[in-house]
């Protein structure tokens, strides 16, 4: 019998209501309301993450925003593994913001798999168990005699039934409260190479991104923003308004928005717009920031983040003292897709659409701004053309919403590259000062770090290695307020702290006459036997990545090759690196980076390699080239002609390995970045005897 679409929608809707009610571990609020949504999707939605319709179509829903980290592939891989379906038969859909169905629907902190690992496995394993039961009931056999394979249940006498044919019966069964997960030796998908689910759409140029959003009646807009710290006094709009293709010029919150029919009309109008700014306080320059760093280093008002033993006494008694200061500038995130967002604000409802890492806070922020309840604000998620933390801020969402409410039209606000680079929420500028005291045996007896950050919050990670291995420790932080806006930037704080610390430890090892790898291992041995105070890392996992990288890169066993070592723990993952440098025509060139990562279970080997290699290239490029300067509150450079991004002819060979330990998965979007600056700087030192204390290197 042929089932018409209408027919199976009805069937599906009959059983989905029962199911969503049963799956209340995802949300106590799952209710009859959700079943109404299932009718629309036209499939048997067994739970938040998956639906199987009577025709056997398996749809897996990926809730977290996709930014290039591969979550839209990795999440469904976990569900499909436990559900035991053929990956080729699976369809993946990006779920829009749905606070009733999902928790932690965000991209940030490399925390998605850590948070959802159990939930995803349970979502798949529960439905698999129900399929088994439905088949056993149908065949009147013991469920223990049945097994599953690639979307089918197989019975003891050779019976075979597809999940699709069992879906309706399975849906009527009680939801099992306990499920058994697969043994990892039986994994068919997890740990293999799974291609990105959006690849086909990407290579054929489908409109997937925020900048590609087109809605009926939509207009375009760009916004001219003031220098940091400045206020808008006046602007000349009359001539601009008369220009062809320009619909409106409106001002709000020190900004001027030009609304038009198309991008080029707006670009031309911008060239004719003049804005007059003023400010109450002097606007910031590079010198302002340098002075703040100097003052912070001298200040007696630092916040003590951690204190073990007595640093002052220990350093006074040290046989040798090593001190070094490191500094990084503000840098832009510069995702290839500049900021943009769509908003359609109506009297009592709002549609937001576009690239955000944090749809729920975006919804809340717009609700607060416009005084419209959150349940009237719908958020559609587009694929993000990168973000690196920039899309954790909601400034661009709020601007779009406010502009739409002012002009009473659906609007797509687009940032030019210059807007994006000048528009803030940068990686904060930070200066660090490290001090270490050695006893006469070259053992570290005292260790101090002071971080002075500009809008950086706590610029230290006070419980991270080598803390825990040293008796006398003092970690201090000073946060200096600036008008330059900052935000998380891939591996917040540690993206530079990792470099500074690993470069410093290299210097300490040299002063102590120790091998840098052996020195780390000896320190970790101390942590294992007698840790000093609270630590956040597991010394055994640290040790393992160090030992493996030393072996894989043949540490100090390659004559004529200059190597640099680093290891860092962030986002609950461990990455050790050895960089190799050759001197060509008097200039150091990074030829190879070997990385060993412990992020627990690797879900998708292809995606994992992409994350490690991409993070190393990212870390290397920004360590070498990136810097913003400030003059009267204006950032420069403003585009890629001067603000150098690393290119394909500048990358080293990258050898990426993963520790195979089966521990529950932890973060991977960020952890390979923090050690990169250090391994490279240490290799450059090995080759040239020149140490780098500042980024960018060149």
């Amino acid at each position, binding site marked *: 019998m042929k089932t018409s679409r209408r027919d199976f929608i009805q069937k599906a809707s009959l059983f989905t209501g029962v199911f969503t009610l049963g799956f209340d571990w995802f949300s106590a609020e799952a209710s009859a309301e959700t079943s109404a949504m299932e009718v629309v999707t036209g499939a048997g939605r067994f739970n938040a993450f998956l639906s199987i319709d009577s025709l056997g179509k398996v749809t897996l829903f990926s809730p977290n925003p996709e930014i290039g980290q*591969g979550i839209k592939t990795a999440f469904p891989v976990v569900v499909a593994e436990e559900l035991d379906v053929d990956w080729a038969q699976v369809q993946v859909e990006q779920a829009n913001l749905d606070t009733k169905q999902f928790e932690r629907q965000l991209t940030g902190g490399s925390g998605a798999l850590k948070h959802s690992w159990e939930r995803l496995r349970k979502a798949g394993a529960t439905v698999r168990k129900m399929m088994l039961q439905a088949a056993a009931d149908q065949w009147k056999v013991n469920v223990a005699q049945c097994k599953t394979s690639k979307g089918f249940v197989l019975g003891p006498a050779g019976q075979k039934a597809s999940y699709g044919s069992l879906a309706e019966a399975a849906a009527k069964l009680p939801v099992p409260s306990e499920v058994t997960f697969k043994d990892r030796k039986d994994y068919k998908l997890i740990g293999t190479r799974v291609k990105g689910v959006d690849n086909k759409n*990407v290579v*054929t140029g489908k409109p997937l991104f925020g900048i590609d959003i087109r809605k009926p009646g939509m207009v375009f807009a760009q916004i001219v923003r003031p220098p940091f710290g400045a206020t808008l006094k006046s602007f000349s709009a009359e001539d601009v308004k008369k220009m062809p293709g320009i619909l409106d010029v409106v001002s709000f919150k020190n900004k001027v928005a030009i609304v038009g029919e198309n991008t080029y009309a707006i670009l031309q109008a911008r060239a004719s717009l003049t804005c007059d700014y003023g400010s109450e306080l002097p606007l910031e320059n590079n010198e302002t920031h340098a002075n703040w760093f100097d003052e912070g280093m001298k200040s007696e008002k630092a916040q003590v983040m951690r204190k073990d033993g007595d640093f002052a006494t220990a350093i006074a008694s040290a046989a040798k003292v090593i001190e070094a200061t490191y500094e990084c500038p503000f840098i832009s995130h510069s995702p290839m897709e500049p900021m943009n967002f769509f908003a359609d604000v109506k009297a009592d409802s709002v549609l937001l659409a576009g690239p955000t890492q944090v749809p729920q806070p975006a919804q809340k922020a717009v609700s607060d701004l416009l005084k419209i309840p959150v349940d009237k604000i719908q958020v559609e998620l587009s694929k993000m053309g990168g973000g690196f933390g920039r899309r954790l801020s909601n400034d661009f969402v709020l601007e779009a919403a406010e502009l739409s409410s002012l002009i009473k039209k659906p609007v797509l606000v687009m940032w*030019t590259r210059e807007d994006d680079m000048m528009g803030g929420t940068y990686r904060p500028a930070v200066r660090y000062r490290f001090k270490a005291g050695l006893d006469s045996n070259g053992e570290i007896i005292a260790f101090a770090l002071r971080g002075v950050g500009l809008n950086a919050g706590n610029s230290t990670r006070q419980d991270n290695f080598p803390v825990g291995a040293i008796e006398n420790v003092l970690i201090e932080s000073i946060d200096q307020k600036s008008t330059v806006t900052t935000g998380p930037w891939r591996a917040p704080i540690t993206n530079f702290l990792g470099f500074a610390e690993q470069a410093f430890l290299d210097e300490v090892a040299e002063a102590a006459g120790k091998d840098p790898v052996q020195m780390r291992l000896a320190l970790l041995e101390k942590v294992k036997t007698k840790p000093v105070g609270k630590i956040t890392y597991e010394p055994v996992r640290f040790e393992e990545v160090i030992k493996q990288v030393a072996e894989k890169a043949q540490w100090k066993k390659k004559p004529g090759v200059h190597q640099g070592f680093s290891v860092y723990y962030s986002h609950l993952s461990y990455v050790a690196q050895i960089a190799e440098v050759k001197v060509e025509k008097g200039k150091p060139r990074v030829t190879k980076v070997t990385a060993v990562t412990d992020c627990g279970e690797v879900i998708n080997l292809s995606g994992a390699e992409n994350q490690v*290699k991409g993070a190393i290239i990212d870390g290397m490029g920004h360590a070498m080239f990136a810097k913003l300067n400030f003059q009267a509150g204006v950032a420069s450079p403003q585009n890629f*002609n001067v603000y150098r991004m*690393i290119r394909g002819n500048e990358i080293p060979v990258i050898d990426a390995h993963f520790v195979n330990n089966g521990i529950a998965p932890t973060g991977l979007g960020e952890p390979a970045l923090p050690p990169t600056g250090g391994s490279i700087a240490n290799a450059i030192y090995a080759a040239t005897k020149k140490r780098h204390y500042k980024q960018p290197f060149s």
Partner: protein
Amino acid sequence: MAINCTVNKKKVSLDIDPNTPLLWALRDHLSLLGTKYGCGIAQCGACTVWVNGEPMRSCVLPISAVSNAQITTIEGLDPAGKHPVQVAWDELDVPQCGYCQAGQIMTAAGLLKKNPHPTDQEIVDGMSGNICRCGTYHRIQEAVKLASKKIKK
């Protein structure tokens, strides 16, 4: 006066400001959204399309310069995604965020059209004008090589 040209084998007539960069004509006037804006100053390559078979930066190319020209965008390379470069891109799982990849693919396909079997160095040199902020460079270079092998068949 309208500018006439051919885009993805279809004749089009653009009655807009002749200074409009081809990028914005494609995106805002022809609804071809696959070609991407990255920098607007021909530095990143995200906007790469073919003009008369040559890869060009559409963000700085006014439509007045493409009168009567044959333009190919990512949508026209092979809509089914069967071009060897598209197939190689998928096979080697090149994209991370994917935003720059239309420009990378048009550059790669243009390179292979001229030089179907480039050396490793020619691939590196030929692809280094395109920025990928996610750092997919290794796989981009490997995929060009793989596509080159597919062409040989």
